[in-house]
């Protein structure tokens, strides 16, 4: 059963492998270009393990940001993880020894693979979730180390590689737009943030944007599909 579980978990993680190796390499190259080599890349990918935060983090390191700004920015960029965790409380409740790592490794991509709560037939469901999380973590670390290694020797200019993060979010946005019937939350996020960017400028708009989004979604509670379902 363990072999079958491992095989199924490996197959499940394959689509993420592609994305993580590419995005990880993008991060590794960016870090390398900013003067942060392999040890930094390894530490960040192993211990932070949050793609967009690591991209943003390179900017913070480079600019010598303060501890407070770094902490607040991390909360803003990663606040969505609170909600991934909330929706996995039930699923991860009785996972025993795997639980701490399962929670630690709950990235956007791992969440998207495991949030349906289904494990293939004949597998150990907890071990399955653990191995999918672990494989994804391995792809991320491998990709970012490869990026740091190749950053200096690639025969072409890597200017513009940072667009991979933008592309990741645009692709997720599009995918959610297609799969979700109610577009109000997505539009709220887009336009509240745009309004805050115009009002507060590119350095200070993230915190107001989070607050406005939460406020607007709270006020819209009876108008969104999710809110109406909860009320009925």
């Amino acid at each position: 059963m363990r072999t079958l579980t491992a095989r199924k978990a490996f197959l499940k993680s394959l689509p993420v492998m592609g994305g993580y190796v590419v995005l990880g390499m993008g991060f590794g190259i960016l870090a390398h270009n900013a003067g942060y080599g392999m040890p930094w890349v390894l530490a960040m990918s192993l211990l932070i393990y949050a793609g967009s935060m690591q991209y943003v983090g390179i900017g913070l390191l480079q600019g010598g940001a303060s501890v407070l700004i770094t902490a607040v920015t991390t909360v803003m960029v990663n606040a969505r993880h609170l909600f991934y965790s909330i929706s996995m409380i039930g699923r991860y409740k009785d996972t025993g020894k795997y639980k701490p790592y399962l929670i630690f490794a709950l990235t956007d991509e791992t969440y998207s693979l495991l949030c349906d709560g289904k494990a293939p037939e004949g597998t150990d469901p907890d071990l399955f979730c653990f191995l999918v999380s672990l494989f994804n973590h391995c792809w991320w670390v491998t990709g970012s180390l490869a990026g740091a290694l190749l950053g200096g020797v690639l025969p072409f200019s890597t200017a513009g590689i940072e667009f991979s993060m933008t592309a990741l979010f645009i692709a997720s946005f599009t995918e959610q737009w297609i799969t979700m019937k109610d577009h109000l939350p997505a539009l709220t996020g887009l336009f509240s943030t745009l309004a805050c960017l115009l009002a507060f400028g590119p350095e200070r708009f993230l915190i107001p944007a989070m607050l406005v989004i939460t406020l607007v979604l709270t006020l819209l509670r009876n108008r969104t599909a999710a809110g109406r379902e909860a009320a009925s």
Partner: protein
Amino acid sequence: MSTASHSAVLVTVMSAVTVLLRFLPFLVFRKKIPAYITYLGRVLPPAIIGMLVIYCLKDTAVTAAPFGAPELIAGALVVALQAWKRNALLSILSGTAVYMLLIQLVF
């Protein structure tokens, strides 16, 4: 670029805050999750992705040449490919490659 020790502190802070965010709901909501939190859990993810799209594009210069054209073209390609093929990796790779070509060779 900051000193190595300050950088190490910042990496530790980023790691600790990220871990805390992931663990917090498991520590706070041990029994019952309030309906309002469940509601936010459903509507916030798409809103936050929208926010992150804008965040990534925040430094795009739209008032000077090339008026954000590389971002617009590459971004539109990602949307179109994702809507057509539903393959995130393909959309991301193509969009990034086109963006790199545009800023290095065209604009």
